[in-house]
């Protein structure tokens, strides 16, 4: 279990995304662990960017004792053809191999922003199905996320339609509260989803409004804050509760791209992440007892 002074927090299914923290990977992992987190979402760039190389990064991940929530992020994959498609398949294969090496059972894929992409739903679904097929032998699930600045897929109901069209068991959807809140996607649309096909939920709040795609891109990449710190806390809490109500029981990952946090000591930011997770677990979801599925036993 988590150990230390923070062991009382009831948020084992909440993890933190390492992109939320500044500095080298081992420091991020140590801060997450010290703040009481038991899992972390990793970024492929951080693994290969490690000063002592990728092997040292993977060793740091194993030594941290953190469970790997997943690996991000494959971009602009779907809808390409010819050499562009072949190139992206190569990139995808490299990321899937990195998943396997890092112990990541999930690869996050973002909806395309490429002007070259054919955004017909059948084409995109075919490509995502192929990506998921590539992931089968490695035991990796593929989670498709609609970026709110995506070219054709920019809200989760559209991403869901593509996933349904692709119809592959290890292909599901990733939700991000930032995109849903920024794009004002109706909360009732969550009821459309099959909770077993929601493979990951990422959580972040932000300040102000982000009306256009450009504003969303700016806010989403620089000015996110942890849930409970922003201006949409009530809406975010309702959103989380609704996901719980439709039966979502997977991982929640705090993914906060914030320029201020990237120049603050990592332990301070990790403490903010912890406060956010406690708020979500205890105030929003009103947990008091250990999670019933904390001991994982097959039915």
């Amino acid at each position, binding site marked *: 279990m988590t150990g230390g002074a923070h062991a009382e927090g009831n948020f084992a299914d909440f993890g933190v995304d390492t992109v939320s923290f500044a500095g080298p990977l081992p420091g991020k992992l140590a801060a997450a662990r010290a703040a009481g987190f038991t899992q972390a979402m990793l970024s492929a760039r951080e693994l290969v960017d490690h000063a002592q190389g990728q092997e040292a990064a993977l060793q740091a991940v194993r030594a941290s004792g953190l469970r790997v929530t997943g690996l991000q992020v494959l971009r602009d994959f779907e809808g390409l053809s010819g050499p562009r498609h072949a190139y992206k398949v190569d990139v995808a*294969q490299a990321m899937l191999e990195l998943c396997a090496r890092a112990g990541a059972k999930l690869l996050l894929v973002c909806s395309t922003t490429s002007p070259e992409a054919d955004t017909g739903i059948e084409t995109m679904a075919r490509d995502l*199905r*192929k*990506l*998921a*097929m*590539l992931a*089968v*032998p490695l*035991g990796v699930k593929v989670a498709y996320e609609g970026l709110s600045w995506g070219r054709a897929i920019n809200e989760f109901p559209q991403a869901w339609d593509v996933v349904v069209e692709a119809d*592959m*068991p*290890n292909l599901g959807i990733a939700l991000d509260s930032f995109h849903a809140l920024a794009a004002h996607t109706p909360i009732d649309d969550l009821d459309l989803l099959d909770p077993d096909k929601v493979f990951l939920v990422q959580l972040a709040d932000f300040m102000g409004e982000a009306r256009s795609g450009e504003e969303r891109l700016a806010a989403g990449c620089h000015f996110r804050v942890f849930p409970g710190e922003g201006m949409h806390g009530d809406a975010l809490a309702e959103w989380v509760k609704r996901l719980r109500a439709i039966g979502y029981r997977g991982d929640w990952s705090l993914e906060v791209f914030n320029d201020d946090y990237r120049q603050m000591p990592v332990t301070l930011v990790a403490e903010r992440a912890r406060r956010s997770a406690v708020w979500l677990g205890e105030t929003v979801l009103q947990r008091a007892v250990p999670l019933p599925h904390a*001991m*994982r*036993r*097959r*039915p």
Partner: protein
Amino acid sequence: MTDIGDRESLGELPDPLGLAGIEFVEYATARPQALGRLLEALGFVAVARHRSREVTLYRQGPMNVVVNAHGRAPAGSPEEAHDAPVIAAFALRVRDAAAAYQRALDRGAWAVPVQVQPMELHIPAIHGVASSRIYFVDRWQEFSIYDVDFVPVPGAPRHPESPAGLRWFGLVQYIGNDRTPDWTDFYEELLGFRALPDGQRFGILPKGRVLQSPCGTFYLQLIEPEPGILEVDDRESLARVAFGAPDVLKAVDLLRARGVEFFEAEKLHSDVQGALTKPALHGVTFELVRVPR
């Protein structure tokens, strides 16, 4: 003449690869002689050796087994720790190997680099479960792929009969928790297999899901870990091969006389439907399944 497909949508043929059974199964082992003795007890005969590498071709009836002393079990696996043999590959007979290979790649298969293959003759292969490979072979009717890479063992028959009338029945694949749908789609989409209804089972180990080859001549059985186990071994592998036998109990008697040991416990024992050999060489088992001649 106008092609019918130009005018009317017929959909894809149910057997897109023109599959015609298993050409060979390949074991990788650091102890090829020990595995060879086990295969000989089962009725296989060493018929040819590789020209340049420590690879031996065993055969009985319609079955070819390649024993590759260069391959190894996946790093970190129990098989590696014990030098245990593993099923490293199976080869499928197809109508057009290059087309089958390209079709699989187009749909999300991984290409296997040529240099890791034991055959010098180019045989296209895709990645299967764990570190195993799936080969596509199309030159199995007019001449033998083994003629290129292998030299006959002096004095050995080229086509030894199977003493117990065995033929390929299929392969058993162990898979991780909740992975049945993933692997079902993998074999359906890439190779044209189809899942049998849950009630349709063969042999004495009727667990998991059975997939039938489009040619109808062999089966893949997918088996997840037992439910209710806390510390689940989630590793995936090709666990064993299964032989079809016209008369299982007769085959068991015959093979037992040749030194093969079978499971004979209250819960699991040889019967007319099937039989299972005791694990040898740290985990190698073979299954017999009744099939009408």
